[in-house]
């Protein structure tokens, strides 16, 4: 079988399992998987930005919060149907992402990390200050969402399927984006900006565009994350959330699509089980995993899967995991060559 077939088959199996899942678990577990999918959308958005375009954001928790609050305020204050608030959250966050992306054009690497870190730190404070809209420290509550009668589903199952549909749509969209012209341009920017520009890539448009799309993903993820809980407070979006997103893309694999699923499951379930042992354990695991993965598995879980399967079925040249590996040392002429090679390989 060709590798493309294998990949489609794997996706098919995952999708069937995902559809069956809510009928085999209790409401609590189904809620957790719903949250994991919402996180996966945000993680995928961050990976588009960091993994593909090479721009570092330590502040995606801010967009996640913005999406969640946009949706909650639209439902609660304006009475917009909750399904319509999802594209609304995406739009608002895309605009915010575009605005953050503008200064990001002139900030590279480290400095962008600093600015976005500041954004993540300031998020809870800003939410508290804007208490007219956000309810401040009191938080916001929305009415419980119920499944429509025709569906015959329990409320938790309904929200699960809503989230599943959005997740599939966002993943397919991302896959098309990165496989085509856009993806090649982004990888070229990441690996050598100067070479990319010389080849005619419009840096400003692609960079701000990626920021907007990435933020929109985070926003939609945030809105979906909030719906089953029905409650929001400034403390829901600590700095640790932004760090968790970063841990998720490193665990799943930088510059991969499917990696977002592994990463999201990791950050959804590790804290749940770690908290049984000690409050601090989840943090110890996150920190340790970030460091160890960068040493041992820079391609993340997806990199490992590809490495294992490529020895049998896949030619090495088409191995995306290499493009996503964290160990791209130095820039210079060698970097430009590699970028060109990779662009051709796709």
């Amino acid at each position, binding site marked *: 079988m060709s590798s493309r077939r294998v990949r489609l088959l794997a996706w098919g199996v995952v999708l069937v399992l995902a559809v069956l899942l809510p009928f085999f678990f209790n409401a609590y577990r189904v809620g957790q998987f719903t949250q994991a999918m919402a996180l996966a959308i945000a993680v995928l958005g961050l990976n588009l930005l*960091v993994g593909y375009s*090479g721009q*570092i954001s*330590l502040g995606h928790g801010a967009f996640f919060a913005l999406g969640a609050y946009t949706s909650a305020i639209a439902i609660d204050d304006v009475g917009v149907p909750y399904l319509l608030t999802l594209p609304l959250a995406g739009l608002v966050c895309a605009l915010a992402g575009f605005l953050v992306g503008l*200064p990001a054009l*002139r*900030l*590279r*690497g*480290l*400095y962008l*990390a*600093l*600015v976005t*870190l*500041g*954004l993540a*730190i*300031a998020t809870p*404070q*800003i939410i*508290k*200050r804007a208490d007219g809209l956000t309810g401040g420290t009191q938080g916001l509550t929305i009415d419980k969402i119920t499944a429509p009668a025709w569906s015959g589903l329990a409320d938790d199952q309904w929200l699960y399927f809503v989230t599943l549909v959005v997740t599939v749509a966002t993943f397919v969209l991302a896959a098309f984006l990165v496989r085509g012209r856009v993806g090649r341009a982004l990888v070229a920017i990441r690996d050598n900006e*100067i*070479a990319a520009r010389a080849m005619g890539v419009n840096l400003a448009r692609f960079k701000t565009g990626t920021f907007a799309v990435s933020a929109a993903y985070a926003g939609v993820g945030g809105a979906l994350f909030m719906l089953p809980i029905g409650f929001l407070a400034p403390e829901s979006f600590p*700095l*640790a959330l932004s*760090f968790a997103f*970063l*841990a998720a893309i*490193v665990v799943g694999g*930088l510059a991969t699509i499917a990696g977002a699923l592994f990463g999201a499951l990791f950050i959804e379930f590790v804290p749940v089980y770690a908290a049984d042992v*000690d*409050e*601090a*354990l*989840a*943090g*110890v695991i*996150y*920190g*340790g*995993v*970030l*460091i160890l993965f*960068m*040493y041992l598995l*820079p391609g993340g879980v997806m990199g490992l899967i590809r490495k294992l399967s490529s020895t049998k079925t896949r030619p090495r040249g088409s191995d995306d995991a290499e493009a996503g590996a*964290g*160990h*791209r*040392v*130095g820039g*210079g002429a060698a970097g*430009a060559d590699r970028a060109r090679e990779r662009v051709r390989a796709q």
Partner: protein
Amino acid sequence: MERFVQVIVDGWATGSLYAALAVAVVLIYRSTGIVNFAQGELAMFSTFIAWGLIEAGVPLALALLGTLALSFAGGMLIERVIIRPVEGGEVLTLVIVTLGLYILVNSLAGWIWGFGNRSFPGLFGDSQLDVAGVGIPVESIGIVAVLIGVVGLLFAVFQRTKIGLAMRAVSLNPDSSRLVGISVGRTLMIGWGIAALVGALAGVLLAPRLFLDVNLMGGVLIYSFAAATLGGFDSPFGAVLGGWIIGIAENLAGTYVDFIGNDLKILVPLVAIVVVLLFRPTGLFGSPEVARA
């Protein structure tokens, strides 16, 4: 008028604390080109060690000396074990590893000492001098004096000693430094050791004003980054001046701009970073970076 001066004096003292941590950040950047996101957490960990020693009945001065020595050793160890494998790698890799260290150290401290807060003894007492109606805490004077002393000492080390020369050489060009016989690895270890020591000093100076808990440095770090950015990432003097400017600006904005108040003070360093990076990316005293194709 007196109130205005008081606000500036208070801001100046707070700014000195930001500056102390900023100096530690700048030290590592100068010698290794890495911005250590974990710097604040390492300082917090050191402060907990000092607290533990004092609780165990060790005399204050001895406890501080012990903490500084342990921090120096700890900084060297971290460089050797955690940073060395990725040194000279991609910015993204380095950011992720130092962030991992940030989360790891923070959580380890929570595991060992819990998440509650403790009071930490002041080093300079709590009396204050009264100068023409403006109260200047002796503590503030002490902090500024320590800070100036540290930066002066660092300047002497960098400019007048062989190891300082080696550190400057390594940061400029590790390969050529190795060729002329400098042990690059050892030099980098010493750089991290000194930075951890300065960070520990920042921690024990800061802890009496805030309460000591695992998030002691979480809020301070972004101010220190702002200070380092404003001063220029490779200039310790710039970091000190940047810290003072940020501290005073923060206090003025918090007092006189209603919209900002106490809640949104955090926007001051954020805005400062963005503005500096957009209009003068090298900061006030930094040297420009040259990108080669």
